[in-house]
Each structure stands twice: as C-alpha cells, then as structure tokens.
C-alpha cells in the first residue's frame, strides 16, 4: 500500500502533501478539544498498536502471500476520526523515517490515501451506517466492516488518480494498470474488512465501552460526514467501475484516439490536473463524470491549500484550558 518515492512526480507530492498538512492540522485542533490532556498518550499508544498490529500476518487460503491489518477504520472506531487520522500519520512517518518503508517525499500522498481517506472517510461511512442501523452496540461490526472495505478501495482509486496525474494522462492510458490495482485492492479490502470485523468483535465482547458511538451531531457535522462519505463512496465506486469498463476493447481504441486528440489540443500549462480530466476510462458518459470529479478534487485541493496556509500560523496554540486539569 505504501507509495515509494519516485513513483509520483514532485508536483503531485507537493499538492497531496499540502492537503495532508491541512488535514493533519485540522485533526490536531479537533483532538485537543476532544481528548484534552489525554491526546498524547492515547494517540501515541493507538499508533503503536496499529504499527504492531501490522506485523501480524493473516494467512490467505491457497496463496503463498499473507495479508495484514491496515488499521485506519479500526483506529477511527476506537478513538474517533481525528485521533485515527493522526495515529495513521504517525505510523506512516515512523515507517518512512525509521524503517524506510514508504517514501519521504510521497509521505503526503500516503497520509492522504490512508490517513485522511482511511480514517476520516472510513469513519464517516461507519457513522452513517450505524445511524441507519439504529446505533445498537452490535451494529458497530457490520458498519466497520463495510467502512473498511470502502476505505481500501477508495485509497486504491485515489492512488490511481495520483499516479495518472504523475505520468501525464495524455502520454499513457493506464487502464490496464488500474484494473490490476483495483482487483488487487478489492482482495486486500476484503481482508482488511474481515480483520477489522474480527478484531472489533473481540474488543466488543470484552470492553464495549471502548468503541466510540456516534452521538447526536450538529447539522454541519452531519453534512460534512455525508460529504466525506460521498467522496469515499464515489472513489470506491469509480474504482469498481474502472475495470468493468475496460472489458469493452472495441470502444476502447476509439476512446484512446479521441482522448489522445483532445490531449494534444489542450496546452500543457504546467498544472497538475492536465486537461482537467481524471485518468479514468472515458467511455460513454464517463468523461463528463470524470471531468466533474476532477473539478471537485480541484476544488478540494484549492480549499485544502487555503486551509493549510490559513491555519499554518496558528498551530502553536496554547493548551486549551477546558475545566480543571486533574494534575494540579
């Protein structure tokens, strides 16, 4: 899952890095409000657990390889999306700088794919499903299982998008590699969903109080949850549809020519989203959808940069004094 340095181009790394910076900064602020002085020990410990949990290999039937936990949704279900996003970020940082697993420059992309989409998006889906199922204790398991599967596929789709941007979509048509990626990650997603579900059912049987229950949230939080869930769901669905589309080779050649022509017409103006079209298979209706998706992502990028720049100056906030700290 970890993107290595050299796979993504520097400008993609910079853009994803800025988005991740904004997301991590926002998580930090939220976490201070949520956990107060417990933030450091709880999040640090959660990150260590995810890290150690990734060392446990799960056997896959009939295959020489084995899978392992990714942990974004599991962490989010335990301590909420803010702590989970930070925990995954910490895991990725430690893996990159201590074990050379995953790139330094592409750290931002990794955090975006696994921390932001995995934890924020996964938690949004988890919350919505739990509300829909009626918020009983045992609904946590199916909700987390579905959220885990979606988050893995969404991460794969996002990687494909980033990779497409890095190679320059007019030069190559990366349908084949996307199909491979998505098929592979559909498998990984099933594994992740199963592992998350089994771990969670064990935790639920021992300490049901540790599982975070989505309470009544403000309307703004509800809307943002739906938006986040929509983004993740959309990405996952795009990932599922991508290989299906590539099964029609006769239409494909035509499309290749068409998009090739278009690409030549559009000047390469140094932007990351060349041609403002996602490098998804563009068949009937797809290019419109792809363009609109690219538009949404572009907006998100701009919004993220704005937030990152705006909040960058205010990160060294004094500790929020809410209530009497126990230690005094």
């Amino acid at each position, binding site marked *: 899952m970890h993107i290595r*340095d050299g796979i993504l181009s520097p400008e993609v790394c910079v853009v994803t890095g800025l988005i991740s910076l904004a997301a991590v900064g926002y998580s930090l602020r939220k976490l201070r409000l949520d956990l107060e002085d417990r933030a450091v020990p709880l999040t640090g410990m959660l990150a260590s657990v995810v890290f150690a949990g990734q060392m446990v290999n799960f056997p896959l039937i009939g295959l020489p390889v084995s899978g392992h936990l990714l942990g974004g949704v599991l962490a989010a279900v335990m301590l909420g999306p803010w702590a989970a996003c930070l925990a995954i970020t910490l895991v990725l940082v430690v893996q990159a700088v201590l074990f050379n697993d995953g790139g330094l420059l592409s750290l931002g992309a990794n955090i975006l794919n696994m921390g932001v989409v995995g934890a924020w998006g996964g938690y949004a889906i988890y919350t919505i499903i739990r509300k829909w199922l009626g918020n009983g204790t045992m609904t946590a398991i199916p909700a987390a299982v579905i959220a885990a599967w979606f988050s893995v596929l969404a991460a794969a789709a996002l990687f494909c998008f980033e990779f497409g941007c890095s190679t320059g979509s007019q030069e190559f048509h990366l349908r*084949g590699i996307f199909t491979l990626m998505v098929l592979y990650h559909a498998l990984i997603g099933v594994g992740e969903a199963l592992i998350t579900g089994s771990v969670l059912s064990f935790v639920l049987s021992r300490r049901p109080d540790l599982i975070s229950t989505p309470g009544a949230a403000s309307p703004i939080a509800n809307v943002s949850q739906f938006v986040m869930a929509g983004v993740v769901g959309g990405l996952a669905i795009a990932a599922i549809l991508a290989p299906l589309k590539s099964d029609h080779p006769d239409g494909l050649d035509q499309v290749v020519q068409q998009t090739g022509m278009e690409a030549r017409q559009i000047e390469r103006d140094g932007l990351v989203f060349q041609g403002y079209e996602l490098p998804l298979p563009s068949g009937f209706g797809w290019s419109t959808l792809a363009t609109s998706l690219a538009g949404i992502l572009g907006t998100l990028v701009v919004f993220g940069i704005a937030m990152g720049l705006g909040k960058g100056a205010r990160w060294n906030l004094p500790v929020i004094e809410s209530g009497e700290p126990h230690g005094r």
Partner: protein
Amino acid sequence: MADNSHLVTQIRPCDAIPATARLALTLLVIVVSSLIPLEHWPAHGLLLVVVFAGLSLAGVTLGYLARRLMLFLPMLLVFGLSVPITQLHRESAWGWMVSLWLRCTISFLAGLWLIHVLPFPELLATLLRWRCPPLLVAMLAFMYRYIFILWDELARLRQAREARNFGSGSWRRDWVTNAQMIGLLLLRAMERAERTHQAMLARGWDGSPKFLGTEARKGE
C-alpha cells in the same frame, strides 16, 4: 524485529553534517532523481554513485544492502513492468519504465542512507526546529517510546499462542487467533495508555508537550 546492531553509535564522517542538512540532502536527492529525464541517464548514474558513497560512509554493509534490495526490487520490477505490458504499442512506455526503476531505486537508497545517519531523537529535534506542531512531535516521541514495548508484548502473545496452539491450526482458527491477538494487544495498550496518562498527570503533565534539551521551551 529489525536488526538494530547497525545503529550502534560510532563516529562516522556523516555525523559531521547537521541533522537538518542530512534530511534536506536526502530530500534533494529524491527530488533531483525524479526530475532528471531519461535522456540524461548519466546523471542518474552519478546520483547512484553519490548515494552509494554516502551509504558506504555511513557504514552500511553490502550484505545488509543486498537483503533490503532483495525485498524491494522484485516489487518495483513488477510494478514498473505493468505499465508497458498494458500498452505494448507505445514505445515510450519502456523508457518510462526504466526511468521509474532508476528513480525509485535512487530514492530507496537515499531513504536507506537517511535512516542510518539520522537517529530518531535528532529527527524529532529537527521537526521542532522546522516549526512542526509540538503536539505532533510529542505524539511521535511517545509512539517511538512504546513501539518496542508493544512489539515485545506482541512477541509474548505469539509465544503464548505457539505454546498452546501446538502448531496445527486450521486456516479459520489461525485467522481468529490472530484477530484476537491484535484485539488483546489493543485492549492492553489502551489500558496501558490510561495508566501512563495517570502517571504523567502525577508527575505534573498539563497536556502541553515538553522536550528535554530542545528549543521547544523557549516559548514558555
């Protein structure tokens, strides 16, 4: 668990460079390697020579390097090949593949150099100097403290499983046991976090990150 014997402290030429410069140098090599077009492949070769020189100065043994590369290269080869294989009609795809291999290998080796010359505490200090939020750095420091403890905990859980399982689990049973192991680790860690938190409070922790011997206290 990773073999940490190579991290034993000894005076090396690389240590003369300040930590910030080491990090910046690595990032520079990675950026430059991904910006060089394939036509200028001698520059890639030059970068590789530089990185190898750095690795040998850092005291990385060839055997260790070979082991790490053996894990890394097959994955990279497959990933690189998948691009030209899916579009055989494009000549440029092959060149692009070679360029990807070169970029990734140089970046990987540069990262390997960094983890050998930049001890984690120094990295934390550098992050603080680079205006990284102190809360995040405190979490990183906490995590670094507990990773190895939880690793040992996991090793104990594994040992207990081996002792009771007698080596012959069915696939489903292996799966369930593994999940329970992670779940148990999670529960124990959360309880440990609560205990640690109480202990921190007892020692005067007020929620603000503190670092010994760094400039973090300057602002207070």
